[in-house]
């Protein structure tokens, strides 16, 4: 579903990604872990077509980047630590706007379906600026799945959420993943990542330094694996 080969990203003289190789099978939930400045967000922005690779080959959902970016965007849902929602519009107006941008038919039915999925059906007429951070993040997931994408990218979705909101987000993330979508998530929350993901890749100094699966982790835990990968 995602195939990245020898990806390099430079900002001026600074090289962020240094020949990164990465691939994700359909239906996999991959947690991309790593210290600050490792290049996780940069990498996710390239997959999301928001940033152009300097060198290397990137294929998402069968389309090549950057040449077929519009086709890739149609298959992608992206959630970042910012909600990408308009505070002066209601929840349903935000959904309707994004629905129109994706050309969704039967839009009202889909809005109801998505708002029910993220547990905000009874707040659909409320302005987004009156929502708590947790509710905004759930609505952001609704926005990202409104067009029923094949691939979901989550960039630090737990940033700024309290315990209750994080648990609620866990449920929504599980629902999203359970629908057979391919998911790539960056996170610093190793406990949550360990519960949700099926594979764990450690990004360090612009390359994937180590990778393991949930099955392989049974002998150890994610924190030990993470520390070991960074120490190497």
């Amino acid at each position, binding site marked *: *579903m995602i*195939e990245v080969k020898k990806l390099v990203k430079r900002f001026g003289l600074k090289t962020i990604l240094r020949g990164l190789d990465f*691939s994700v*099978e*359909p239906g996999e939930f991959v947690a991309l872990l790593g210290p600050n400045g490792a290049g996780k967000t940069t990498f996710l*922005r390239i997959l*999301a*077509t*928001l*940033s*152009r690779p300097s060198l290397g080959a990137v*294929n998402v959902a*069968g*389309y*090549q980047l950057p*040449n*077929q970016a*519009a*086709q890739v*965007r*149609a*298959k*992608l849902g*992206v959630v*970042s630590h*910012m*909600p*990408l*929602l*308009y*505070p*002066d*519009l209601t929840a349903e*107006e935000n959904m309707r*706007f*994004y629905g*129109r*941008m*994706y*050309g*969704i*038919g*039967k839009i009202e039915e*889909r809005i109801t379906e998505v708002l029910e999925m993220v547990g905000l059906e009874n707040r659909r007429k409320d*302005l987004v600026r009156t929502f708590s951070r947790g509710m905004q993040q759930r609505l952001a997931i609704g*926005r990202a799945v409104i*067009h*029923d*994408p*094949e691939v979901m990218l989550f960039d630090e979705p737990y940033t700024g959420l309290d315990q209750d909101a994080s648990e609620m987000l866990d449920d929504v993330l599980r629902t999203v993943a359970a629908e*057979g979508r391919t998911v790539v998530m960056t996170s610093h929350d190793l406990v949550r990542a360990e519960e949700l993901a099926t594979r764990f890749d450690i990004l360090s100094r612009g390359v994937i330094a180590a990778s393991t699966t949930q099955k392989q982790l049974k002998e150890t835990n994610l924190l030990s694996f993470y520390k070991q990968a960074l120490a190497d």
Partner: protein
Amino acid sequence: MMDIKPEIADNRPQTVGRSSSIIHRPSFIKATLAIIQKDLSAEFRSFELISAMLVFSLLVIIIFNFALELDVKVRQSVTSGVLWATFAFAGTLGLNRSMSVEKDRGCMDGLLLAPVDRSVIYFGKAISNLIFMLIVEAVVLPVYSMLYNVNLFRLDLLGVILLGSIGYAAVGTLLSTMSAQTRTREVLLPILLFPVAMPVLLASVKASSGLLAGAEFSEVLAPLNLLIVYDVIFIAIAFMVFDFVVEE
């Protein structure tokens, strides 16, 4: 691993999402209208942008009203200059605000993630900005007419104001998209915008003052033609370069 063949992928039907019954990629016009409607709905709920532009515009014309001589001839001769200075500065306020709404909460990324040509975003934002400018102008003109005792409600003059506003919104939207990505956007936008928009402003002032001085239409044809040419050039350039402006 899935076998990826871009040349085959190109021929796929342009449906979006896993269930093909859900969606089809939206047309250019529908997506542009969605952005305009979104901007208008948000603004008519908060009135943050229009009220800031209006208060600023009214303050400027009131200050000029006190600062200028009460002589009718002098007032008539400075009318177009005062008007366009007001529109230009108020327009900058609106452009800054309009783009910072998109940038501050990451909504620009939301727009960029939509499977539409990125010029849709430019045209949607430019038309919204133009509508906000026209609303402010629709309030400023009668107030100005009353304060300065000048009749500004003439079709030819309104046409010049419309053409000038189109050019200003066209180039302003492009430059505000660039400046919104910097920390000093409030300062940077006027620094970038005024030199670039100068031909539009000069042609607008020239055509407006000619019409207000009672000149024949043929006499103001030159600045008017210039204004139309600049509008077309600015829109064409913005259409071509917008993709590069929003790209990382």
